[in-house]
């Protein structure tokens, strides 16, 4: 009996101890990334970045005296899984905010859940439908596709290009880009002379490009993520096409130049997130410090250059911490804090949120770059 009592008291003590350590109120942050599956090139750096940031913050004592507890789940790029895991984050893990998912499709699927449960969501996907029209609880860190498209058209206007051929990938990224470009071209009075697509796993785009050549456009705009755009770039060289080629911000990494080959990629222009070119941008750029810090931190931890995609998670986390500092750590207060974000310098740009803008980025999020001798150079 005595032994039982002592055993019980040990348990009780353990229990009290355990709850008291929770009682320091850690901030429970959930994250959904497609770490494996077709969109793993997004989810993997996002997960790595977020885990790195949380470790770093906790070692410095956390935010407002409380540590951050992170719950990361892999959605495998599957919208159904994303919904299940979002519910699990909210119901079981009791998180106060969710960062992710990585793709537009998954985000669209998760949105009704967070709206109903009143948990703020900061998506790492670029689709414009996520924040337009504005949903009360949904935010996103990547700039809208039309911002990148506008950057391309503004630059093309300088070069007096008016007839464009489109070559877009037949997934949600390409479809969204295609839609935005067409709408923007119509608004600006530019002509789209050819509108071709390719599927994500295509290995030869010479038929599409041959057809495009027949329409004699001033420039070709290709919208996709690796490896498709690299194949397009190689095929253009193979066909001896001298038409200027624009790529989207989706290939703004050294990997693209490596895949396309420096010779074929020479002269390709694209709107790049500033992370890829931070050593080229002006010394007075407000983002310079953040970009350098992030890249160096990532290189130190993982031995590879930081990617724009990881930057989406970086910004998501900074927005949350910023909101917690400003407003408090409940879902409602974080939401309010997020909406009041002003001039927060992140990797993707400088965020200025408002009740009518849950993205908060403008044209300054991108730099037009031109690939020159296998490296980036600013296009002026």
């Amino acid at each position, binding site marked *: 009996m005595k032994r039982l009592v002592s055993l019980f008291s040990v348990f009780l003590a353990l229990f009290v101890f355990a709850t008291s350590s929770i009682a320091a109120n850690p901030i429970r942050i959930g994250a959904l990334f497609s770490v494996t599956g077709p969109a*793993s*090139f997004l989810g*993997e750096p996002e997960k790595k970045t977020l885990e790195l940031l949380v470790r770093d913050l906790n070692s410095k004592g956390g935010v407002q005296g409380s540590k951050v507890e992170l719950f990361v789940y892999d959605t495998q790029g599957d919208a159904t899984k994303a919904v299940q895991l979002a519910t699990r984050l909210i119901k079981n893990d009791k998180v106060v905010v969710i960062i992710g998912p990585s793709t537009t499709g998954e985000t669209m699927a998760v949105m009704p859940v967070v709206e109903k449960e009143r948990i703020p969501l900061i998506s790492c996907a670029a689709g414009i439908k996520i924040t337009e029209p504005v949903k009360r609880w949904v935010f996103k860190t990547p700039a809208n596709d039309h911002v990148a498209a506008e950057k391309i058209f503004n630059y093309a206007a300088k070069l007096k290009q008016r007839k464009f051929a489109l070559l877009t990938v*037949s997934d949600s990224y390409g479809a969204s880009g295609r839609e935005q470009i067409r709408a923007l071209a119509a608004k600006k009075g530019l002509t789209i002379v050819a509108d*071709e*697509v*390719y*599927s994500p*796993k*295509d*290995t*030869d785009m*010479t*038929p*599409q490009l*041959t*057809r495009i*050549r*027949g329409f004699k456009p001033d420039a070709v705009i290709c919208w996709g993520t*690796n*490896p498709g755009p*690299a*194949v397009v770039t*190689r095929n253009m*060289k*193979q*066909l*001896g096409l001298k038409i200027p080629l624009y790529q989207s911000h989706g290939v703004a990494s050294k*990997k693209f130049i*490596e*895949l*396309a*080959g420096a*010779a*074929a990629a020479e002269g390709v222009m694209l709107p790049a997130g500033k992370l890829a070119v931070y050593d080229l941008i002006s010394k007075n750029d407000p983002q310079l410090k953040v970009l350098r810090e992030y890249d160096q931190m990532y290189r130190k931890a993982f031995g590879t250059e930081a990617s724009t995609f990881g930057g989406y998670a970086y910004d998501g986390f900074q927005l949350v911490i910023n909101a917690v500092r400003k407003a408090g750590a409940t879902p409602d207060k974080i939401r309010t804090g997020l909406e009041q974000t002003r001039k927060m310098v992140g990797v993707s740009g400088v965020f200025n949120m408002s009740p009518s803008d849950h993205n908060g980025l403008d044209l300054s999020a991108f730099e037009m770059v031109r690939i020159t001798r296998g490296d980036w150079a600013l296009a002026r």
Partner: protein
Amino acid sequence: MDIGSLAANGFSWYMMQHQSAQGDSTSALTLSSVKAVSMNFSHQIVQYLLSGFSTGAIYSLIGLGFAIIYNSTGIINFAQGEFVMLGGMLTYFFLTVAGIPLFASIILSVIIATATGVIFERLAIRPLRNATPLSLVIITIGGSIFIRGIAMLVWGKDTHAIPMFSGTEPLFLAGATILPQHLWIFGITILIIVINKLYFYYSISGKAMRACSYNRNAASLVGIDVRRMVLFSFAISSAMGSVAGMIAAPLTMTSYDVGVMLGLKGFCAAIIGGMSSGIGTVLGGLILGVLESLGAGLLSSGYKDAIAFIILLLILFIRPRGIFRKAETERV
């Protein structure tokens, strides 16, 4: 090298003929604008055909791999695409990571891919000799997922580029362009098809394999080791698949998951060719490649992949024995 330059000579000769014929036919037209348009259009067609032939050649080689295994075992080996992937990825690995010269990398990759095929047969197919063809087909699907998974763990999920075998400057032919790598593809494909033919018709083991494909029991009765022939067929198919993967990789790039789509396209080629391990499948691959390319260029690029599968379905519905096979011909 010889084959490459031979093919190059042959090709440029063909193109010159083509071009002069072109000149004659269009010179009759008086309107210069019409001439320009028709020249432009015919250049496009030549380009579509060239692109189609080069992808088609790859499909042919993969299709032959399907056909050879089908003929000796009666099963469809859905892991065939993974040997194509192994060809490309192993070459990338030896060439770029291990720093071995191209020629040696190619030889090593073929050897390792072939060994993988042999091990696959030994461990996954042979122990289940009495299983139904359906269970064996399902096992090959499992095998393909397994091989792909291992490749993903070992080499990661990135796409990798392999340098061209020789030269990157395009060659201009009749208003169309091809790369030296295309000549390698045509040359090596022709070489393999010729060797394949010689092997099956003039060597003892090739003849024995044909005997197995006609009637396994009878072949066994005359003293042919059927199990060894099955092993041979896996070795030949995996070697052929890996070669297809490595000659295509400098153009198409490679990653751990390229085998899925290429495997399906090769399967289509073999179906069009009626599972013949000869010229039927080769033509099947070329037809598929050309139709895809013409379809993407002339109709709509959105339907490129659909074309292959529509053909596959049509053939399976209307003419399941393939369009090149008469009712009673040999299967090898």
